[in-house]
């Protein structure tokens, strides 16, 4: 059994949030006052009672359907209004809504498309302001600062979560109790339950897009990351969850945890590849698949680890030569780190309308996050060099090594400190995704006695359990 599975076998403990969540529901109504999202929703409640059912079916279908690539701003505004009235109807009718949901995957598709449109709208708006070329569109965007506002989007997601009492249900399941007892009038219906559940995944994504990586991980407190989780039943949701969790870990410099997340889903995908081909989400998944391999390549370069065999060979196939350059480190690898990061990171957004009057003030959020990440890469650029040399010795004089490397001894001391610091990492053991223990993540350790470097290597003992279990399975 792999580390991964052992870790997953632990029950998810440390849950204090169910009481808090209860309070949240009560708080909710009071908070409606400051949430401009609600007034947004109210604006579009003009649906007549009679035509509602037919309209509704159309709205349901539309909510899960991607917009055309070349959709105009008017279409985007209209789509936003459509979502508002749909969610308003679902959330604010008298009692739960009786709805025939078009399909099982509908709930995920709606939340996914809702967030995708939010993401692409924000990016489009930012681009219009940056280029300053389309005055007409800029004017239209300027006049509608609240369309696709971050407060309205978050409000929809949080409201769906609270209405369905999904966090209470998940917490109960984790404790081994019956979730239905905590579901309430709304949460016992599949429509609300599924919308609520996928809204949690949606929040993970939105927080990550906004650059709030710790809150993104915190959002999943009640969800257990394993194959039994509800998200695993919808392939795209399964995939999305692991991508954003892995990415958030990576931005918190928990590369070990990031690799664990990416590997988990990539192994799963490689096993199920055959029966997904032809599915309409296949292209999207194939693209995310490649992105995650790129991210694993980055993580492994920053934090050398033994990978799962399947992942390792796929990685060599896709990024073989690049991986070697990344692992080699040094200034030459910088452009490659940046290129891979840009190709594989989420499409970060800025939540507020840009400054249309000063195009130069609007920086692409992707540039912002890339620069922050690259600073850490620059700071740790010489770790591979240090490691490759120290592996060869048990003791070494600092000045002599500095001579080999052609650097000042002072600089080498800094490199040694940096490498030592980075070999300590927080790693998840149990509890919420943000929990973890500080572990030594490197098999190479050293200490300095003035200018004398004492090197020691931790060797992994033979792994017998795995061998034993495999043979047991074969014999019986």
């Amino acid at each position, binding site marked *: *059994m792999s580390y991964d599975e*052992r870790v997953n*076998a632990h029950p998810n403990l440390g849950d204090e*949030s169910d009481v*808090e969540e209860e309070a949240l529901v009560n*708080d909710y109504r009071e*908070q409606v006052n*400051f949430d401009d999202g609600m007034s947004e929703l109210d604006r579009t409640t003009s649906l007549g009672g009679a035509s509602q059912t037919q309209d509704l079916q159309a709205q349901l279908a539309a909510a899960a359907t991607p917009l055309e690539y070349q959709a105009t701003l008017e279409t985007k505004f209209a789509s936003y209004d459509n979502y508002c009235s749909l969610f308003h109807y679902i959330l604010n009718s008298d009692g739960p809504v009786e709805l025939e949901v078009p399909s099982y995957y509908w709930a995920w598709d709606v939340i996914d498309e809702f967030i995708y449109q939010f993401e692409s709208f924000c990016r489009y708006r930012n681009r219009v302001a940056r280029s300053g070329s389309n005055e007409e569109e800029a004017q239209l965007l300027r006049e509608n600062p609240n369309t696709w506002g*971050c*407060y309205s989007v978050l409000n929809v997601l949080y409201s769906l979560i609270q209405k369905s009492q999904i966090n209470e249900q998940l917490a109960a399941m984790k404790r081994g109790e019956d979730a239905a007892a905590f579901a309430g009038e709304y949460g016992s219906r599949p429509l609300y339950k599924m919308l609520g559940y996928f809204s949690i995944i949606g929040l993970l994504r939105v927080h990550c897009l*906004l*650059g*709030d990586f*710790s*809150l993104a*991980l*915190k959002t999943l407190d009640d969800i257990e990351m394993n194959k039994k989780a509800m998200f695993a039943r919808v392939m795209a949701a399964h995939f999305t969850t692991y991508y954003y969790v892995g990415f958030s870990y990576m*931005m*918190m410099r928990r590369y070990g945890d990031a690799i664990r997340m990416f590997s988990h889903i990539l192994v799963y995908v490689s096993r199920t590849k055959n029966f997904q081909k032809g599915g309409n989400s296949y292209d999207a998944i194939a693209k995310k698949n490649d992105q995650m391999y790129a991210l694993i390549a980055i993580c492994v370069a920053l934090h050398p680890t033994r990978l799962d065999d399947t992942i390792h060979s796929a990685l060599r196939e896709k990024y073989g030569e690049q991986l070697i350059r990344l692992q080699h480190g040094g200034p030459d690898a910088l452009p490659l780190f940046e290129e891979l990061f840009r190709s594989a990171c989420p499409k970060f957004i*800025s939540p*507020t309308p840009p400054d249309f009057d000063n195009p130069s*003030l*609007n*920086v*692409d959020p992707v540039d*912002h996050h890339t*620069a*922050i990440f*690259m*600073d*850490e890469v*620059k*700071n740790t650029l010489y770790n591979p060099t240090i490691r490759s040399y120290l592996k060869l010795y048990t003791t070494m004089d600092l000045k002599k090594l500095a001579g080999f490397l052609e650097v000042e001894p*002072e600089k080498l001391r*800094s490199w040694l400190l*940096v490498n*030592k*610091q*980075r070999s300590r990492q927080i790693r998840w053991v149990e*509890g*919420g995704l943000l*929990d*973890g*223990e*500080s572990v030594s993540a490197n098999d190479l*350790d*050293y200490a*300095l*006695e*003035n200018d004398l470097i*004492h090197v*020691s290597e*931790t*060797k*992994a*003992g033979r*792994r017998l*359990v795995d061998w034993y*279990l495999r043979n*047991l399975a074969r014999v019986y």
Partner: protein
Amino acid sequence: MGVAFDRCDTRPANIDAILSGLDRYNPETTTVFQDYVVQQCEDRTFDCYANLALLKLYQFNPHLLQPETVTNVLVKALTVFPSPAFSLCLALLPAYTKPFPSSEADAQSAQTSDFVESVQKLAHLSSLLESAQYAQFWATLNSDDLYADLVADVAGFEELVRIRIAVEVGKAFREINAEVLEQWLDVRNRESLEKFVTEVCSWEVDKSGAKGTVIRVPTNKENEARSEVKSERVDIDMFGRVIRRGFEQVA
């Protein structure tokens, strides 16, 4: 020893309540968080998760942003290096702050405001600390009065950084030359250095050696660098399937 990013021992109950509820998005709580930052600056505590919530409120409501509070949050984050705290804070700042300008021209061209300049200066300090260039860190810090203004609100900033550096040194060194340590800690006077290492760090000073004064760090878990053979962890769960199968076949 477990570490949970979202918890903090010194966090008051009212802040905790806001953080775990939807009030963390309520612009009215901005002042509460701002006061909390002031408190952290005064009593030398640090609550990264709460400060990120404040930066998020600024992200959503740019008109509320107080440059001094933001820089104070960043300066506090400097005092906990090496950690991702500083970059996580930067990630929530508006992109126009360009914390790491790609070129000199880039830094100067866009009619930089004081706020942008401050963020860039602090980001530079952070890079120096994260890359363990401690001597350059102090040189940079002392090179410009602007830095002194930036760190003025954070009580004991220099001492906090000095202690962090000492902790990192303690993890990597068994013995270190006093001259090197002097530069890293920016203690220019041998007597104060000896006082600092003996009283604050409880290390020993050895003046008998031929190579000048040497500071001895007692052995700890980090600086012993012992070779070991890591054996695998075996627990009963791993055999669950085999045991279950055993029962199935009997039945």
